[in-house]
């Protein structure tokens, strides 16, 4: 009988991807790359939900994951529209340069 994969490995993978997403979000300056790091974090969370759904033998985790996907798609659409507008006005994609509301 083939051995399976321990559940904790999926959770550790989810943690690693989430950590990478946080690192990208905090370290990068290009606003599109920051956005992509957010998507990476959302994907990591989806993996966690589905792993727990497997462990608890229910389909509810899949439903949560589905809603996360839908919300992420809506957020990507609106966020990219905002980025387009900001680029039209400021001609820069560097988030350090759009800080005119600070101070």
């Amino acid at each position, binding site marked *: 009988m*083939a*051995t*399976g*994969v*321990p*559940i*904790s*490995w*999926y*959770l*550790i*993978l989810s*943690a*690693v*991807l989430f*950590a*990478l*997403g946080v*690192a*990208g979000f905090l*370290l990068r300056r*290009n606003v*599109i*790359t920051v956005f*992509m*790091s957010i*998507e*990476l974090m959302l*994907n990591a969370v*989806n*993996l966690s939900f*589905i*792993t727990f*759904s*497997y462990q608890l033998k229910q*389909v*509810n985790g*899949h*439903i949560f*994951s*589905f*809603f996360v*996907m*839908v*919300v*992420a*798609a*809506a*957020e*990507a*659409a*609106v966020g*990219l*529209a905002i*980025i*387009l*507008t900001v*680029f039209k006005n400021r001609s820069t*994609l*560097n988030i350090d340069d759009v800080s005119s509301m600070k101070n």
Partner: protein
Amino acid sequence: MDVILFLIFAAIAVVCGINVVVQSHPISSAISLIGVMGSLAVLYLLLGAEFLAAAQVIVYAGAVMVLFVFVIMLLNAGAETRKGRSWMAQLLGLPLVFAFLGLMAYFVQHLFPGAPEVHFGAFRHGTALDVGRALFTQYLLPFEVVSVLILIAILGAVVLARKELE
């Protein structure tokens, strides 16, 4: 067989994830993110979530990432220039991240001592039938609310991205 498949696609996911964060040109980050989503779709299949694996490829990798790639192409975003990197942050940051992840791995391993191992094909309730049934009976209200959310997002995107009416 399950272990080999998991290791291959987890490795691809992690390498592509590191690539997303490390690459200087946004288009390379976008391609790597597509790689992450594709390998995650395979991992969902290994966990028995067949509808979600298909939805991941259709929605995330096939629509959201196309949107990202379009915006990067339209804005002609160049490679990012680095200015004022703090070496202290890198010196402290990377070992701390590894320490944190190691601690997480240790705790996760010990929190679930009797957890079932993931065998491909053991979870059979991830079909479109089961997801649809739960979505339209137990989770009907969130489903309807999320459709209104999508409508708002469409309207918002159209309003924000259209040409100015002079």
